[in-house]
């Protein structure tokens, strides 16, 4: 008998959800879903599709989350009509996970926070950044509205079992360098199609040093390398997070020793440096110094900016705001730079208020908004005019992403974004943090 090949963590979760002993790369299967997610842009299409199937009830009212976050609080009459459609559908179907108004927040910040996802789950969301929940040890991936509709009706989705890239992390990150720099570095290394149709399986002794916020940020941007999902092993930190959030009982899956990987990439976290993705692709990464930068040596140079956005499903968590506040506290943002701080959820907002971070931001000359996806996708709350540049802690810098087609988005960590807010140009948080002066640098 031929020697059997082991399975990756992703493959094991998919096999379990499909009721199979084992699966092979490329195999198509029908998996039972633990959770189905949609937002105010993708859910209306899904509702239309759901109705067109003649469906009258959802597979499980407790396993669906609808989050009004993209164009909410309603940016115009049309957006209001879309949210209203979702609201009425949620009421009709008695869906318990409808998040709107004071209960809203950016979907991928609030689902983990509210314990809607646990380890071992299979989650689909009609939003590409659904891959975020891989940080919790779940298989989680973005789909379209038709998949969402069929998922809401049947509780099932079809998947092709992905091959895997193994990302071995060692060491720990230097100060002012974060998970965002790690994922930008990786995307710069393998490209926006570098993990196409594959899973990104993070592992190694460096995992333990990454906070849950960092793991969520890293998995969030797996899609920007084309990946089907990103996933982290479950450790003590994961279990503590899930318990704190009141999530369901975790089912822990671990990769087999003899699992096969298409490619293995080793990243020494201690060698990471602040990294920025230039327009108009997340793979266009650059660093502040040329000397043996892992991303290829392109330097950032002088890039004057008009706007800074700190928030989003990538970097809108409390830890992100704490880092930004530690740089902005007692200083003043550069004249002419609009600095937008957007907490990812009401819980984050409240904690930031209680910890005095909002005061730090406002006194530094930033503005603080209610949670929303807003400017990240060029929706509202911070749109760019032609010729304007923004440093954003968001996840995409495509043409026209934050506004006019002739505007530019530079993707960075909260530390780089905050340092840039003070300097009025893209700046290095390691340098800004060293400056003893409390006055602004502009």
């Amino acid at each position: 008998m031929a020697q059997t090949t082991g399975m990756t963590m992703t493959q094991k979760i998919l096999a379990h959800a499909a009721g199979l002993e084992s699966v092979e790369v490329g195999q198509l299967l029908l998996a039972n879903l633990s959770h189905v997610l949609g937002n105010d842009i993708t859910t209306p299409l899904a509702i239309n599709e759901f109705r067109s199937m003649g469906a009258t009830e959802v597979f499980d009212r407790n396993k669906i989350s609808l989050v009004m976050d993209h164009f909410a609080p309603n940016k115009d009459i049309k957006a209001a009509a879309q949210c209203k459609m979702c609201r009425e559908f949620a009421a009709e179907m008695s869906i318990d996970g409808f998040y709107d108004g004071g209960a809203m927040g950016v979907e991928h910040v609030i689902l983990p926070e509210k314990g809607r996802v646990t380890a071992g789950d299979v989650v689909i969301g009609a939003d590409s950044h659904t891959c975020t929940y891989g940080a919790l040890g779940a298989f989680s991936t973005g789909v379209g509205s038709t998949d969402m509709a069929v998922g809401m009706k049947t509780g099932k989705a079809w998947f092709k079992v992905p091959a895997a890239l193994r990302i071995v992390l060692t060491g720990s990150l230097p100060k002012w360098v974060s998970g965002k720099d790690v994922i930008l570095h990786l995307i710069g290394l393998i490209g926006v199609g570098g993990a196409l149709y594959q899973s990104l399986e993070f592992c190694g002794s460096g995992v333990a040093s990454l906070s849950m916020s960092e793991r969520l940020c890293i998995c969030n941007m797996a899609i920007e390398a084309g990946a089907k999902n990103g996933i982290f092993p479950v450790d003590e930190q994961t279990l503590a997070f899930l318990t704190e959030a009141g999530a369901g009982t975790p089912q822990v899956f671990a990769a087999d020793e003899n699992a096969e990987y298409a490619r293995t990439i080793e990243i020494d976290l201690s060698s990471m440096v602040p990294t920025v993705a230039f327009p108009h692709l997340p793979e266009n990464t650059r660093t502040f110094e040329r000397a043996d930068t892992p991303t290829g040596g392109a330097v950032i140079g002088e890039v004057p900016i008009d706007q800074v956005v700190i928030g989003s499903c990538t970097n809108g968590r409390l830890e992100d705001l704490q880092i930004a506040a530690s740089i902005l506290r007692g200083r003043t943002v550069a004249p002419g730079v609009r600095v937008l701080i957007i907490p990812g959820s009401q819980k984050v907002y409240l904690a930031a208020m209680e910890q005095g971070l909002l005061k730090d931001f406002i006194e530094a000359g930033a503005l603080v908004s209610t949670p929303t996806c807003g400017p990240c996708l060029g929706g509202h709350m911070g749109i760019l005019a032609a010729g304007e540049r923004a440093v954003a802690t968001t996840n995409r810098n495509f043409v026209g992403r934050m506004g006019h087609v002739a505007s530019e988005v530079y993707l960075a960590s909260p530390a780089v974004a905050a340092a840039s807010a003070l300097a009025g140009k893209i700046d290095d948080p390691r340098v800004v943090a060293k400056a003893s002066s409390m006055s602004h640098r502009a």
Partner: protein
Amino acid sequence: MTSFIARSQVIKYGDNVDTDVIIPARYLNTSDKKELARHCMEDIDTSFVERAKTANVIVAGKNFGCGSSREHAPVVIKENGIALIVAASFARIFYRNAFNIGLPIVECAEAVSDADDADEFSADLQAGTLTNHTKDKHYEVVAYPEFIQQIIEAGGLSKLAQSGGLD
């Protein structure tokens, strides 16, 4: 979903055409397909909507449809009369969305590299063949997996689900 794509001109694009340019998010405050379709590709190609009235095939490079999961992207392409997309590769969410809504797509890097904008193409997806009439070249494409065939034959995923195909 039709498997025979009649001869027509192609509209050619490069690598990494993302869903934000296929249909910019600023228009997604509606689900009206006709209204959305008017803005298809406008951030990279203002002539698309006009050209798509006669040219029914898109040919593109690597990672077509990357970025957002918005199904509005394949929907507006289809709504503009595009009957087939040939790309070197597709981003995975776009790939499944296209089948799920009944828009035929095939991967064929060779056909893409040979093709110029406005070349004449036809295809027989049942037989798995593509033809570039301008260059007088023929290509064989890999057959779809059986489950994808079922989605295609049903006319999309929701129709397959409706007929009990997922039970």
